[in-house]
């Protein structure tokens, strides 16, 4: 039955709690990256397991920037911005490394005893955890936006 009522405002319209941190591109920072995501996921009301999955996906993206983007060169930086609304988390990862679009990287399939392919697992994890993965090159920067807007229901 339809009513004349106005629809309630879409949740996207709710104000997000934004937090932005810039880290040196070093693997020692991953623990801190996780902590930022954990705090944001908690503001979203995500359960422990969903929060962990978001930390995992974010760290995979940041590990890739450190290892493949900057290739271990000193001085690189990576910015992690979280935007948290109830039930809705956006993580944006920004770096100055050469352009790379992970969304166009072919997804590997599940490994099997005959095919123990080890590469490509990070990008697979990102896609499996996140509901949306968006890449954009803006100026000299890679912007990778990961969105999680429902409860993680297991792999």
């Amino acid at each position, binding site marked *: 039955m339809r009513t004349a009522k106005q629809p309630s405002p879409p949740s996207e319209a709710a104000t997000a709690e934004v937090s932005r941190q810039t880290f040196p591109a070093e*693997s*020692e920072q*991953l*623990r801190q990256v*996780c902590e930022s995501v954990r705090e944001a996921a908690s503001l979203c009301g995500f359960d422990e*397991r969903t929060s*962990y*999955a978001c*930390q*995992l996906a974010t*760290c*995979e993206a940041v*590990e890739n920037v*450190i*290892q493949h983007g900057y290739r271990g060169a000193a001085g690189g930086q990576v910015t992690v911005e979280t935007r948290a609304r109830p039930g809705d988390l956006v993580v944006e990862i920004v770096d100055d490394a050469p352009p790379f679009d992970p969304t166009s990287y072919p997804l*590997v*399939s*599940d*490994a*099997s*005893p005959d095919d*123990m392919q*080890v590469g490509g*697992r*990070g990008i*697979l*994890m990102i896609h*499996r*955890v996140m509901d949306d993965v968006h890449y954009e090159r803006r100026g000299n920067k890679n912007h990778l936006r990961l969105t999680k807007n429902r409860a993680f229901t*297991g*792999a």
Partner: protein
Amino acid sequence: MEIKTQPYERVTVVAVEGRVDSASAGDLEAELKRLIEEGKASFVLDLSGVEFLSSSGLRVLVTTLKTVRKAGGDLRLAAMSQRASDAIELAGLDPLFKTYEDREAAVASF
């Protein structure tokens, strides 16, 4: 990350605790390499204390698995924490490993 190694005659149990990411995966790899160079090929990895397991850690697990299988051994997983098992499934690597409820069962499987 902390690593505790318990060698038995037929099998070596390696308990990994804490965060396994690209900052620590190298230490785990080094310890496993050292044990393999000692001639060990049958491993139980106790993952009950794993709080975080990224693809860098998983890479060490898979490369070690390949090495020890070639040597006639195996790498089997025991007592996985939820976080370890979520990471392994999300990475699509769960078909590779024999997994056991507890260390005892994993040790007995060899």
